[in-house]
């Protein structure tokens, strides 16, 4: 389950122990690679985990929200959250997997910065967020069809000259 368990630094081990204590049932996988700790969790437990990380473990800054598309998997999308602790200067990555059409809980109640970041994920991947106050396209125009960062979306549109 753990990759490189021996080399896990103390502070990450502490974080991991505390998360495991509180969320033992909902953790899917934990991984430590390239000096970065990743926790994969069932998507129903995303908000409680994030609140726990923010309030108890001082990960007070949401750096980034994004998604990765794996069309061959049953649970097609992987949501990726990067958190940062302004006090301790650690980073942590939280992941969750969802099926196509499944909704993820919005992080806007925990961090204000999630608003635009989630809108971008919606725009690019078509993942919907439950509880988002203003879920619209952000970079593309409202009439745009499809979600460009999905793997089945072509780089060049049909009938156009490749360059």
């Amino acid at each position, binding site marked *: 389950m753990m990759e490189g368990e021996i080399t896990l630094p103390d502070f990450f081990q502490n974080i991991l122990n505390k998360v495991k204590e509180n969320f033992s049932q909902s953790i899917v996988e934990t991984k430590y*690679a*390239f000096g*970065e700790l*990743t926790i994969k969790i069932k998507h129903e437990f995303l908000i409680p985990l994030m609140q726990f990380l923010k309030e108890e473990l001082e990960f*007070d*800054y*949401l*750096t*980034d929200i*994004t998604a*990765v*598309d794996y069309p061959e998997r049953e649970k097609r999308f992987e949501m*990726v959250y*990067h958190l940062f602790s*302004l006090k301790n*200067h650690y*980073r942590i*990555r939280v992941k969750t997997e969802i099926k196509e059409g499944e909704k993820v809980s919005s992080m806007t109640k925990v*961090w*204000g*910065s999630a*608003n*635009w*970041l989630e809108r*971008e994920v919606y725009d*690019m991947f078509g993942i919907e967020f439950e509880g988002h106050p203003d879920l619209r*396209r*952000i*970079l*593309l*125009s409202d009439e745009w069809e499809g979600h*460009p*960062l999905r793997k089945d*979306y072509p*780089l060049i549109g049909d009938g156009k000259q490749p360059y």
Partner: protein
Amino acid sequence: MVQVREIVVNMGPQHPSTHGVFRIKLWLDGEVVVKSEPIIGYLHRGVEKLAEHRTYAQFTPITDRLDYLAAISNELGWVEAVEKLMGIEVPQRAEYIRVILTELTRIASHLVWLGTHALDIGVMTLVLYCFREREHILDIFEMVTGGRLTCHAFRIGGLPQDVPEGFVDKVKEFVEVFPKYLSDYHKLLTNNRIWLKRTKNVGIITAKDAIDLGLSGPSIRGSGVKWDVRKSNPYSVYSKFDFIVPTGEVGDVYDRYMVRMEEMRQSCRIIEQAIKSLPSGEICAKVPKVIKPPAGEVYHSIEAPKGELGYYIVSDGSTIPYRVRIRPPSFVNLQGISKMIEGQLVADVVAVIGSLDIVLGEIDR
């Protein structure tokens, strides 16, 4: 009974103070902004999609086009992320030259910010001075890379070639004269009564709100949060240099202005130290001809002139990245604008946009 009528004003996307193609819809009650809605995406080029169809090396020059005022910073973030993924150790000389070029980029980017910000508020003179100094820096870039705006200065593993003769002297010359110019700018603005009226207590954002909205770089430091990626998670050889991280107190336009002004001086200090201790030796690590990182994922971020610039790479072990996510500082910083301008006068919107230092190339990608 006085009848209140709201007027909706569209500012941009062709407004000179929006620094590119940024549009903001303002609901006005007289001159006061009641509500605002920023609209972006006019410059969207699908950079993240492009990355999934280019090799790692081919993507480096594309990163130049994100924040085109600080092309070298974008490259540094990308090449370091790939190096982290592949476990490449970059030679010391290359690291020092990288630091010198990136800090020069920071000064160049801040100079454009200062000139245009002042121009927006009504100081016409300064922009000419700023562009004169920026020209020095661009000349140095041209000397090293052949490019002035989109330089393509770095390669994965180090540098494409060593710096030419005369580079050190030219940088030394710049570092010597620049603090004098900087104090000239201070003389023009810092205690200028009109400048103070236009910037003090305008566009305030508290530290708590700034953290909640994910601001980074000078925009969060203006609110008093002492956080700089160069200090908190040192990359390259930044841990070897002595510099301070300036912060503001109130979080208004003036504080953000002072933070950036001081940052230019600190960048100058870093360059000075780097030039003094510039080691000799190799300029590129042994990198395989075909760059094929192992499967895995990394997140690497640097302190770009605008804030935290992060790259998240997912590799499937092939020569082409499976997914590249760019965390642009301006995109997240821009979210703070509504909070800053609501309740302020419409003329202050221009000052606030300027103080956020946005570049649409990286917001829209």
